[in-house]
């Protein structure tokens, strides 16, 4: 007797997480397919925030673009500006004063501090630890204050300019920032201990979203995520841009490769940032005025191309700037942000974990959608019907 009827049973539950979702603070859609509680596949859909910044840069002058690129992302605006400005200085063949280099480093490390504190706070909130979230955010406010003392603004600082920085620092400000650093360091050590010892944090984070060293390199993952899997990459240490060649610091790596290791890398890096910031304040050179005269900056850019890297909070951020030597606008500006690689290429990381782990894994990657959304990407096939056995949907399937 032949088969007369085939009954199709749905393989998986389709579960949209985002773009407006209580677990996510940013507009991204993770379309997860779950078999019971277990995630078998994740599609990453973005495109809720597209702004076309690369094209905008081609339509504006080299100098105006400094303000455009600083608005790619609110959290990491300073590193964007620094990376772009260094590309321009490379094309111009310009050297800047040591004092300006040190001040740039100080500003960028303050930014790293508040960014790392923010994502660790968000992680606490996502695993239901709201009290810890609020406490970390409260302490993060101090760093925002320090950033305001240094640059004049809490968030969008517009501090870096071609040839140097926009404001110098005096002794009173130095002392204020040092006080803030001392208070924050104490709190950072406390929070680090909480993340090391609290049993509910450990249960939610350990062994969740594990990724190996080989997978990190194959999928071009960068930043704290890569370092938590034992890949020692850090543009500050390798490119030695600005004053990083003169400032001692450690590149933090761990070997666990899970969500917990990524958060711990961030706590340790925050403590390193405190040391760097303190070193800058204690050893600030006074070789020249760090604020250049804007009227004397070159108006014409020669033909040339430059590719600069910077270690943003989320990992390697790169800028490519090309000048054709004729136009007052750049011919091409290409921005590759860390989230562009870290979020789009990591669909494989969720497979095999439970639905409740999904926000934890995503948060541990420190997603920055406004960074990614200069271009809009959808990762995978959109078929609603799957004729693939669950076995084939195993880890690594794209």
């Amino acid at each position: 007797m032949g088969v007369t009827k085939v009954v199709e049973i749905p393989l998986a539950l389709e579960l949209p997480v985002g773009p407006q979702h209580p677990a996510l603070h940013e507009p991204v859609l993770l379309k997860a397919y779950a078999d019971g509680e277990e995630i078998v596949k994740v599609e990453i859909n973005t495109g809720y925030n597209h702004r076309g910044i690369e094209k905008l840069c081609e339509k504006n002058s080299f100098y105006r673009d400094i303000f455009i690129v600083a608005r790619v992302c609110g959290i990491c605006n300073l590193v964007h500006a620094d990376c772009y400005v260094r590309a321009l200085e490379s094309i111009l063949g310009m050297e800047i004063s040591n004092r300006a280099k040190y001040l740039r480093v100080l500003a960028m490390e303050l930014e790293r501090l508040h960014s790392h504190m923010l994502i660790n706070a968000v992680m606490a909130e996502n695993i239901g630890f709201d009290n810890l979230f609020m406490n970390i955010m409260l302490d993060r406010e101090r760093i925002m204050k320090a950033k305001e003392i240094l640059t004049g603004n809490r968030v969008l600082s517009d501090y870096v300019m071609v040839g140097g920085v926009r404001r110098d620092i005096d002794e009173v400000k130095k002392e204020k920032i040092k006080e803030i650093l001392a208070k924050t360091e104490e709190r950072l050590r406390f929070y680090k201990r909480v993340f090391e010892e609290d049993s509910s944090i450990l249960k939610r984070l350990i062994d969740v979203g594990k990724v190996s060293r080989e997978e990190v390199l194959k999928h071009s993952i960068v930043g704290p995520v890569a370092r938590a899997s034992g890949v020692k990459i850090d543009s500050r240490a390798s490119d030695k841009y600005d004053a990083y060649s003169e400032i001692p610091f450690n590149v933090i790596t761990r070997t666990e490769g899970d969500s917990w290791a990524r958060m711990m890398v961030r706590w340790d890096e925050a403590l390193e940032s405190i040391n760097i910031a303190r070193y800058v304040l204690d050893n600030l050179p006074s070789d020249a005025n760090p604020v250049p005269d804007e009227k004397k900056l070159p108006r014409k850019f020669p033909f040339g191309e430059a590719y600069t890297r910077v270690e943003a909070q989320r990992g390697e951020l790169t800028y490519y700037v090309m000048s054709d030597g004729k136009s007052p606008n750049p011919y091409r500006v290409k921005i590759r942000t860390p989230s562009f690689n870290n979020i789009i290429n990591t669909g494989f990381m969720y497979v095999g974990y439970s639905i409740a782990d999904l926000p934890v894994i995503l948060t541990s990657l420190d997603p920055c959608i406004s960074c990614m959304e200069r271009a809009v990407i959808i990762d995978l096939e959109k078929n609603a019907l799957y004729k693939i056995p669950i076995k084939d949907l195993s880890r690594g399937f794209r």
Partner: protein
Amino acid sequence: MNAPGDLHFISEYILETQIVKPDRKVYVFKREDLRRIFEKLIENLGPSSFYISTIIGTDLKDEGKIRLDYYVVFLPKEETIVFRTFLPRDDPTIDSLIDMFPGALSGECETYDLLGVVFKGNSFLRRGFFVPHEIVEADKYPLRKDSGV
């Protein structure tokens, strides 16, 4: 071992050497040798000694070409080497690398949708994921210099 000077095993594919400021070595190659070069890199250096950082396409309209740059970071020194090739503007096709390096996915998809470079073998390429639908309907690639966007 991973110093760029030691990339002699791909020297037969290199047509020219250039420099992108500051001190990034550029190796120019023919587009049909792309996969061969990356195969050689894996063969000689191992699969986990470098990663593709970014893929940059530039429209050189006046020369009738599209320039494609692969920025590859070599560990442990993190030296960035550029592999550069030129595609004719009327036939901008090149082989895909995503079967070897899934990390090339984001760069390839972006370059296709914004510039129209077709990566043969990448089944994820499609229009309209990067750019708004009205630009897709007008069949425009926004980063091309004559797109009018």
